[in-house]
């Protein structure tokens, strides 16, 4: 090797030059690191997300009439405390037995009756509010020999947010499990933990999402 060679994959083309992911590297014939394609950058959903992202059955992580199912309802609020009426709230969670209806679960895909695990709710009607119909998730392994507290992973998309923001819903009536949860334990204080607690309500639970402000919800880098 004489002069330092330039890896062609590190040369950034101009924006007018089309980018195509490559199926391999050109060079010595040996990989000098893991093959890695650049990921597509995210963009905001914009104000018209309802056209592409709403489903008639979106809210139903658990089908209507599923025993034990309830509603989680809440608001999405901006930094001025105003309702965000054009957000999409998506949820993903385990079933009551702690299984996931996903082949990516190394324990095998679960098939809990009437349970999809995923819901999405546009905050248009009533303005700024979302609602998902679901079941209380079971506890799932935390990877260190313990169990996580019941939780729901949440993505929020909206105009004015260029990448989704991720949070988790925990349940205020699961104090014992919450005290053992490694994610809650990783938060700085009780005020931060409280932003993730859904509180019991008439037909289920209530959970508000504060995008900004003094009560800004804890968001996660995943």
């Amino acid at each position, binding site marked *: 090797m004489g002069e330092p060679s330039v890896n062609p994959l590190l040369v950034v083309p101009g924006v007018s030059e089309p980018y195509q992911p490559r199926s391999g590297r050109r060079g010595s014939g040996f990989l000098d690191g893991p093959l890695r394609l650049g990921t597509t950058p*995210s963009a905001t959903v914009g104000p018209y997300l309802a056209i592409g992202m709403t489903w008639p059955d979106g809210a139903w992580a658990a089908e209507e009439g599923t025993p034990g199912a309830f509603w989680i309802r809440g608001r999405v609020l901006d930094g001025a405390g105003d309702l965000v009426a054009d957000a999409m709230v998506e949820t993903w969670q385990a079933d009551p037995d702690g299984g996931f209806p996903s082949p990516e679960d190394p324990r095998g895909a679960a098939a809990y009756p009437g349970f999809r695990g995923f819901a999405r709710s546009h905050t248009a009607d009533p303005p700024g509010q979302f609602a998902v119909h679901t079941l209380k998730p079971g506890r799932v392994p935390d990877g260190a020999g313990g169990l996580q507290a019941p939780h729901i992973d949440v993505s929020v998309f909206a105009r004015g947010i260029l990448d989704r923001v991720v949070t988790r819903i925990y349940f205020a009536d699961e104090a014992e499990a919450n005290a053992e949860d490694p994610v809650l334990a990783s938060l700085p204080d009780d005020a931060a933990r409280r932003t993730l607690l859904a509180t019991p309500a008439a037909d289920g639970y209530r959970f508000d999402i504060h995008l900004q402000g003094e009560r800004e919800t*804890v968001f996660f880098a995943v």
Partner: protein
Amino acid sequence: MTGTTSAGGLHLPRYHREDAALRTPVGFPDYRSTALRAPLRTPVDLPHRLTEVTGPVLGEDRVLPHDADLTLRNGGEAVGQRILVHGRVLDSDGRAVPGALVEVWQANAAGRYRHLGDSFPAPLDPHFDGLGRVVTDSLGRYEFMTVKPGAYPWGNHHNAWRPAHIHFSLFGRAFTQRLVTQMYFPDDPLFGQDPIFNAMPAAARHRAISRFSLERSQENWALAFEWDIVLRGAEQTPFETDDDGDVA
């Protein structure tokens, strides 16, 4: 605690996170709507556990045959330049993502969305609703027929225009792979003044621009644009080894 599964021997993928210098930030000052909406506190790292490495199975049962052709709606043909948009969905370790739901939505050829909130005085097209859905095939390929969306004005700054774009929503296999983004067209003169385009780091912008494809253009019918989408890929690492006895 009934129904919980013991934690022994689970091996979970960890999904690679793109370098911050190549990711779109959540907020961007030139895009004014981010001011009160993008969270201001530093997000807390969430290690990838079972909830993050799994995801819903959404496929053919969410898609109807006509969902792949946006040019035929309401018993007639949409006005505009027909284009075939096609490409592959991959993850960053180079594997195709088969059977993945792709949702798209866009403005019509005049730059107008079929949405109550869109007040741009350009005509609606009775034969265009701007919604498409497809599922990737066994090689991760997708394609749909549509018309080229028009550019449209918005209120972000004086004489602000969005470059022509198509919104894409993808699920992949895992919660960590979820992506909503926008596909652009080559050499759009509106890129320079668009803060949503320019919020992407300069080194990553080319990844959001499709390529004109004469090869896939259909003679006497439609132009073609090709765009590959790369989701986060998995790095296989042992998640837990406490009772791991499966060494060969």
